[in-house]
């Protein structure tokens, strides 16, 4: 596949969207088909950072680590490989939406996505958009959205490419991956299979214990295709399947007490028909998604708790372009039918219809702006009217200003509403009003983006005892707290080439204050400081990289007691690769990676030490 991409041990591309119409995509030599046009076209004023496949291949161990080392996102992981969640800008983990080919895939039951229950190595790219996105992606898109995309390409000549990866690491960690891409003028196919397994029984530094009961294995199968019907229209489909089993490790003082097992299965299918005319573009989508988890409190028992959901989506988008004034107006209509249940909650059906309208215009090649509105109709509760505005202003050839503001929401989950004896049917959605102002610079070597943000969230859903006076002592979710977040994010990227030497540097820093209005204190598990950088160097057949993460201290109590904190930590990974074979059609690369290079003791959750220094040997073959 991407020879170049594998050569350049590169890079996060800050795709700071100036692309004001679909022509960006069409201008490329190859025609790229993507299901998530909202991300590509309707991110005016937002910062979107892309992790391409060469970056993804540096952190294949987990989606959690990929994001932690490359993005300004806080990942909270219950021991390596355990339950994992992500937060943008000090918002809660249920305020992060994961989008698969344009569809929000957060769990209906918990409202979140587990970042260790997804295999991302099969995707062509992961895009991270900071800021609110409920207009485009619905519930939970408050702090930011994480996009998993399959990119299908039609090519002039017939192409057939394969990529095989195999790696062996410490603690009996194995990974196998095969991706296949076939394309010609009329058909583009991507297929991939990946298998991961690990005993994950790393020694806990400074103790006599190992990470007992931490093993995992998972299998993922992805398949997508695009068919050229005629000059105007094409048909695309996408399917992603995942089947994983994990054991949950425990905490000090006695990790041998751990005895839990967790399985999850997901199946996602999407069919898209597009028709592009001079003035009118039509897009119709049909999706069917299922998700199921099984939780075994005792791994030796056949008894388990479960949660299941089935979702059907029908979507029709119509875009009209005012080509003369470089403007467009797009209507997005979506109907969704959801069935969710758990072992304790009988099947609940939720139907919702949403309608949004986006107006987009480019003024004199300098100012691009977008205005968006959305209204949802839901069988369970009323969802507020939402709106957003984004502006990009090209100040100078390399300088730009970007501004966005939006109102977003997160609906109560099935657990919040229906948990036996504890659910609360009177809940209303959380809402967040937010704004961001960014200043950026970009030329062919250097790019920088500095943004400041403000988020005011109200009616946050919090589980609390005595939440309902009719149910004293019972933990009940209520619309309780109000949180105000403010902070700044800096993203830098630099690349240099001299003779055969190539250097690439990427850097992220974020400062976050998330203040609970009732206590005037920082919310729990919100680091003020987050920093990471990646440095890659490439010389002929050699390449090497270094990754650094600094995660600031977090408080774990509402009063910010110094007695209950998770201390800050700084950890680093490094790797070197050598291309044993390198021809026009074949590349065979051998690599070694060291995780936690300096063998640092650190915890992300109290009393759960993270892995010590460990190694991974990998073979990448493309043909």
């Amino acid at each position: 596949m991407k020879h170049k991409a594998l050569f350049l041990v590169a890079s996060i591309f800050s795709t700071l969207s100036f692309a004001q119409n679909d022509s960006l995509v069409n201008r490329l030599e190859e025609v790229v088909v993507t299901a998530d046009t909202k991300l590509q076209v309707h991110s005016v004023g937002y910062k979107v950072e892309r992790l391409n496949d060469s970056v993804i291949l540096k952190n294949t161990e987990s989606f959690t680590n990929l994001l932690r080392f490359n993005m300004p996102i806080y990942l909270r992981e219950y021991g390596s490989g355990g339950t994992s969640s992500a937060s943008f800008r000090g918002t809660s983990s249920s305020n992060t939406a994961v989008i698969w080919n344009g569809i929000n895939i957060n769990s209906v039951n918990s409202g979140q996505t587990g970042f260790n229950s997804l295999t991302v190595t099969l995707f062509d790219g992961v895009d991270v958009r900071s800021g609110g996105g409920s207009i485009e992606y619905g519930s939970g898109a408050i702090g930011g959205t994480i996009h998993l995309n399959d990119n299908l390409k039609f090519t002039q000549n017939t192409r057939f490419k394969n990529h095989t990866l195999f790696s062996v690491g410490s603690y009996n960690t194995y990974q196998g991956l095969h991706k296949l891409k076939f394309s010609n003028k009329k058909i583009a196919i991507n297929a991939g299979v990946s298998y991961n397994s690990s005993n994950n029984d790393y020694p806990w530094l400074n103790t006599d214990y190992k990470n007992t009961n931490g093993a995992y294995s998972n299998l993922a199968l992805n398949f997508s295709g695009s068919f050229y019907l005629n000059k105007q229209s094409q048909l695309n489909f996408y399917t992603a399947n995942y089947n994983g089993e994990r054991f949950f490790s425990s905490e000090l003082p006695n990790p041998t007490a751990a005895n839990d097992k967790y399985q999850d299965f997901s199946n996602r299918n999407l069919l898209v028909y597009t028709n592009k005319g001079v003035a009118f573009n039509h897009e119709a989508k049909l999706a069917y998604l299922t998700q199921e988890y099984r939780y075994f409190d005792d791994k030796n028992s056949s008894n388990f708790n479960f949660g299941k959901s089935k979702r059907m989506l029908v979507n029709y988008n119509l875009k009209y372009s005012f080509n003369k004034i470089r403007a467009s107006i797009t209507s997005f209509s979506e109907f969704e039918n959801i069935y969710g249940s758990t072992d304790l909650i009988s099947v609940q059906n939720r139907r919702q219809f949403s309608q949004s309208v986006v107006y987009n215009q480019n003024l004199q090649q300098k100012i691009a702006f977008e205005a968006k509105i959305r209204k949802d109709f839901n069988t369970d509760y009323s969802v507020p009217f939402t709106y957003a505005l984004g502006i990009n202003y090209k100040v100078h050839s390399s300088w730009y200003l970007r501004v966005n503001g939006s109102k977003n929401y997160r609906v109560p989950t099935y657990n919040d509403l229906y948990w036996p004896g504890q659910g609360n049917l009177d809940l209303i959605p959380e809402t967040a009003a937010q704004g961001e102002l960014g200043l950026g610079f970009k030329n062919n070597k250097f790019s920088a983006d500095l943004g400041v943000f403000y988020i005011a969230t109200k009616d946050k859903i919090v589980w609390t005892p005595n939440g309902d006076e009719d149910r004293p002592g019972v933990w009940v979710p209520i619309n309780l707290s109000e949180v105000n977040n403010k902070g700044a994010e800096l993203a830098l990227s630099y690349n240099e080439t001299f003779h055969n030497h190539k250097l690439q540097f990427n850097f992220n820093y974020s400062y976050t204050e998330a203040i609970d209005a009732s206590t005037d204190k920082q919310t729990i598990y919100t680091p003020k400081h987050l920093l990471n950088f990646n440095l890659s160097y490439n010389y002929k057949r050699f390449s090497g990289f270094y990754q650094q993460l600094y995660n600031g201290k977090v408080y774990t109590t509402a009063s910010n007691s110094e007695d209950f904190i998770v201390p800050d930590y700084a950890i680093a990974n490094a790797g070197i690769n050598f291309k044993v074979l390198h021809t026009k059609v074949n590349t065979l690369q051998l690599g070694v990676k060291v995780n936690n290079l300096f063998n640092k003791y650190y915890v992300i959750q109290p009393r759960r030490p993270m892995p010590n220094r460990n190694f991974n040997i990998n073979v990448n073959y493309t043909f």
Partner: protein
Amino acid sequence: MKINKLLTSIFILSILCFTSCSEDDTDSEPRGDYENGILISGEGSPSTGTGSVSFVSNDFTVAENLIYKTVNNVELGTFLQSMAFDDDNAYLVVDNANTVTVVDRYTFEYKGEISTDLELPRFMVVADNKGYITNWGSTSDDTDDFVAVIDLATYTVEKTISVGNGPERIVESNGKLYVSHKGAYTTNNIISVINIEDDSVTEIEVKDNPDELAFNSSGDLVVLSEGRTIYDANWNVIGHTLASISTIDTSSLAVDQEVVFAEGDHPSLMVIDNETIYYALSGSIYEIGVTDTALSSTSIFTAEGYLYGMEVEDDNIYLLNANFSDLSTLNVYSLETSEQVSTQSVALGASKIYFN
């Protein structure tokens, strides 16, 4: 909480005796920083903070949190369910860690731990130099619950005694262990009586979900059964079973008296002090005499916040307002005047009070 009510009283007496009629020393040396005070155990929460013990001096002038961590520089883990005592030691029962940590009860220095052969340990009692710990066993199995018998010289489980589902509190009197079966994640309605001499188990039926146990001044066992809420398949409430305060004659093992609560009332905490039974219902505290055959209709206190622990000592009532996202609050009121005597910030998820 009240597991060791008797033991505690004996210790208080012995301390009094030790201080007032000490034979060996002229002035008794304090046996540690944590003598002559109140110990509060907090369950902790996996994300928020460790299970911990707080100390408050008897005169309320000294208060210290996280005393185990301060002395030993390690955390107890979650959830610190309960504590038990003998002459020298305190036993800290951490259920999710399947561990009972042994410390010197006055200095809180680590002395050892029992971390094998326990499965979801809940409460412990010491009798005749043996420890007895109730265990839920696997949460997926209602039939593997047991009482572990601990050799206190080696801190190991020397044998187990199989009991019914969900054993909770455990107290000892005259060579017999009394275990309330609250039913773990489900429900139960028995008190197990274990004869220490031959491990034989006799079951006494009481109202649903028996939890708190205490002996009254006549030596009878008083049981608080909380009753349960009945749901249909869709988890709508369709009824309740009744709660009660039952008095069991420890020689005949017959339920002598049963004071029953109104349908839908689910009391939670109970303490016996002298001739008075104190119990909590919907966040309010009520009192009745030990021989009363009817409940009280007027509460003596309304607890602040989330009432999660209660004790009575020296004419004061101690109430815990538990917080699982932060430190909890101990409120002490005079029973005589109803005035607040003290308020202290104590362990995260505070649930039990012991007098040391």
